[in-house]
């Protein structure tokens, strides 16, 4: 598959119009991704009318650049403000913001940029080289696999609860319960809608994330000394390029994060939102004495940031090869392909290789470009961490409201967002887990539909059915392993009463 001809298309990417489109896509993606409530699909949708009047390869490069950068842009606000701009960066807000609070914001951005850029690059090369064979793997995922993948994702709740497993599980249950609101696809019955129109479609993920994290954070910042800032620092470091030593320190976490992202990306529709949590929980379960998970552990951030961009390239595989869009962003990119007369599918690779490979190279180059632009944008945005709380708190609240409203033009969603915000605020105060609620909310529908679909396709014998399917069995093994490692006693934790040493490394 990979030969001189594939490489040849790289030259097309750097033509002036394609390169300009790429810069435009990256900048729009980064900015919109960074604003809580505005999501990559929204950025991509806004580019539809523009892109439809461009040549196919330029249009598609614009869209895929915007997609990659949007996922990464969400990490800025997650790390710096604990206000994730996209659902893909929610997990990064935990360790990332804790690092910011400890004055290590720039280090967090360095790691995040490295993890995201390299993750996106690897994912892009996998897309370029292995798309057709991997697409057959994504077809193997059926109802039972979706159900089990959702359960695997839910096991992360135990890990992200940080000590209070009971409270973590309660948070997860609340999320699962809230995910049942809305019209039931199997019967058309309105569940828990109380005759409120906006409840009929269930709770959207975006208002929930903005509420649970960003709005709650705005409320929390509105407490305390108005003139103090988040990081406690007065100046920002200029060391924006990652150092070999700090990369070496988190190398295994990065590799695990990238790997998780690459694999999960192949699962259409479910992979992107689950990968970061699976990768994060994996790190927590492997914690060694001295690791500071939940208190700004850089390994956790490396894994979540690696996984959410590791997903990006592979998540486009089912779309390019099979015409199956895994999410809204992929659906828009698919629509753009079709508008330009390109039918997705294997024929695209044989009939129009110049277009498809130019787009894939565009995605790869966009990831590199994204790294350069992002690091300066993030450095600028990091000044927010020096802002007095008295200004920053209200600012986050305002952006949360505007962002949520701009997405749906539905005032009810603003109320829903605020409801989640108040919930998130009190949960943090009382050591419950907003991440648990979010996981329940995201994974609830995947698990519910997966289980009900499995009951149908297995004609009522789901367990026998699952045990005859290799991928299902593999996921069951992973679930058992995840649960074992989550709850096994860790000898060092018993003697952990005295102060754990701050990991001795990188100082800014």
């Amino acid at each position: 598959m990979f030969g001189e001809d594939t490489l040849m298309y790289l030259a097309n990417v750097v033509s002036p119009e394609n390169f300009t489109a790429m810069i435009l896509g990256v900048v729009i993606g980064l900015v919109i991704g960074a604003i809580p409530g505005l999501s990559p699909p929204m950025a991509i949708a806004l580019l539809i009318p523009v892109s439809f009047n461009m040549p196919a390869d330029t249009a598609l490069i614009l869209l895929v650049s915007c997609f990659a950068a949007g996922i990464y842009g969400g990490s800025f606000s997650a790390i710096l403000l604990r206000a994730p701009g996209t659902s893909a960066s929610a997990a990064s807000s935990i360790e990332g913001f804790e690092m910011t609070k400890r004055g290590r914001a720039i280090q967090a951005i360095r790691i995040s940029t490295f993890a995201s850029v390299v993750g996106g690059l690897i994912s892009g090369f996998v897309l370029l080289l292995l798309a057709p064979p991997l697409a057959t793997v994504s077809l193997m995922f059926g109802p039972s696999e979706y159900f089990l993948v959702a359960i695997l994702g839910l096991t992360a709740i135990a890990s992200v609860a940080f000590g209070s497993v009971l409270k973590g599980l309660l948070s997860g249950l609340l999320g699962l319960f809230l995910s049942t609101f809305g019209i039931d696809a199997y019967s058309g019955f309105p569940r828990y809608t109380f005759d409120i129109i906006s409840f009929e479609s269930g709770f959207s993920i975006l208002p929930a994330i903005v509420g649970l994290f960003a709005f709650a954070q705005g409320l929390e910042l509105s407490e305390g000394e108005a003139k103090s800032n988040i990081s406690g620092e007065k100046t920002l470091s200029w060391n924006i390029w990652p150092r070999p030593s700090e990369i070496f320190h988190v190398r295994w976490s990065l590799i695990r994060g990238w790997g998780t992202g690459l694999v999960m990306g192949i699962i259409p529709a479910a992979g992107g939102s689950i990968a970061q949590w699976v990768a994060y929980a994996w790190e927590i379960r492997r914690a060694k004495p001295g690791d500071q998970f939940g208190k700004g552990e850089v390994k956790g951030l490396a894994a979540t940031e690696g996984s959410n961009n590791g997903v990006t390239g592979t998540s486009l595989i089912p779309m390019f090869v099979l015409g199956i869009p895994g999410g809204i962003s992929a659906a828009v990119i698919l629509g753009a392909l079709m508008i330009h007369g390109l039918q997705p599918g294997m024929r695209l690779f044989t009939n129009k290789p110049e277009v498809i490979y130019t787009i894939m190279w565009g995605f790869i180059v966009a990831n590199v470009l994204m790294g350069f632009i992002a690091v300066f944008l993030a450095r600028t945005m990091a000044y927010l961490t020096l802002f007095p709380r008295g200004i920053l708190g209200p600012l986050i609240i305002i952006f949360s409201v505007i962002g949520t409203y701009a997405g749906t033009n539905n005032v009810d969603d603003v109320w829903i967002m605020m409801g989640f915000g108040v919930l998130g605020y009190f949960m943090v105060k009382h050591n419950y887990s907003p991440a648990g609620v979010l996981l329940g909310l995201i994974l609830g529908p995947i698990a519910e539909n997966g289980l009900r679909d499995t009951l149908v396709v297995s004609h009522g014998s789901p367990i026998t059915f699952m045990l005859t399917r290799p991928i299902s069995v593999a996921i069951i093994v992973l679930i058992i392993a995840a649960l074992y490692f989550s709850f096994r006693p860790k000898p060092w934790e018993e003697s952990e009463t005295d102060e754990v040493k701050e990991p001795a490394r990188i100082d800014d």
Partner: protein
Amino acid sequence: MSKTKSTTTKRQTGFGRRQFLAGAGAVAGAATFTTAGKVARAQSFPSGPVQLVVPFGTGGGSDRTMRLFAPFLSKELGVPVNVINISGGGGWKAWAEMAKWDPEENDHIIGSINLPHVLSLLDPRMKRTETLESFNFIAWHSLDPCIWAVREGDERFQTLRAFIDHVKANPNQIVMSTTAVGSDDHMGIAFAEKFVDGFRVKKVYANSDGKKIQEVIGGHTDAVAGNVGYYVPYMLDRKMRAICVLSADRSPNLPTVPTFEEVTGKRNISFAGRTFVLANGIAQNKQDIYLNAIKAAMNNPEYIMKENANRNPLAFKEGDELWKALREAEELVKSVKFWELEQ
């Protein structure tokens, strides 16, 4: 809606507070720049930007279609046309507002309504107060008939007749992928179960075509109910094979595929459609301006070419023809009464 703003402001903005907030966000700003440059001429009406309401979120099928259409409509109206997404309640957040639009205040706004989605108003569980008459439908935009398809290479189902015979011989053993209860895809299956003796299948429900396609191509289900436009590419790619079309006549895209009625004698007609509405009671001259602009935009060869590539079958209808199609869709839903079906 707030009454604090002057009528003039409202007339221009349509939504008052809504518009202000949306304008403050990046969306309206970015949407404006796409069409603002294309204003061809000035006329007395519309006097300013027109909003085109999509009842679903950004990036979905309806959103993509309307964003594709907006520049062409803008050219005809002579003012920018901005796509506004009002999402929630499976479209009803926007539709409930459309039914209440004021003919004076909301005369710079066009709504889009999806069929059969809006016919969930017939479902007594939803307790809707609206009827089809609550909306001022002015034009039909697109109509994509339903099809049933199977995996390419599945030797069991060479024809619809073979499929139906197999289902009758093995009741509740064949699994079909479909969109949620109440959708056009589901309605076609429900009609068959109600009116074809002994036809009983199991259903797996989805909220997206991606899931359905993955299930049937991946061999997880036996057949899929979808729409011609969306599924033709998979036929061309030899991933799927259509066994019937749920329309009165064969589809020009699939001339060899019989209609459901041809094979069974039962008139099973189901489709996904999009229509345009204006405020009830809007002045006739204003309505004419919008209708003519929509008609002209839909006849623009460049637009037709793009929608052909997009595989979204355009089907302009107005007046009696429009209402006849609406009534037919309503009758189908009433005959199936999907809310009474047992699960």
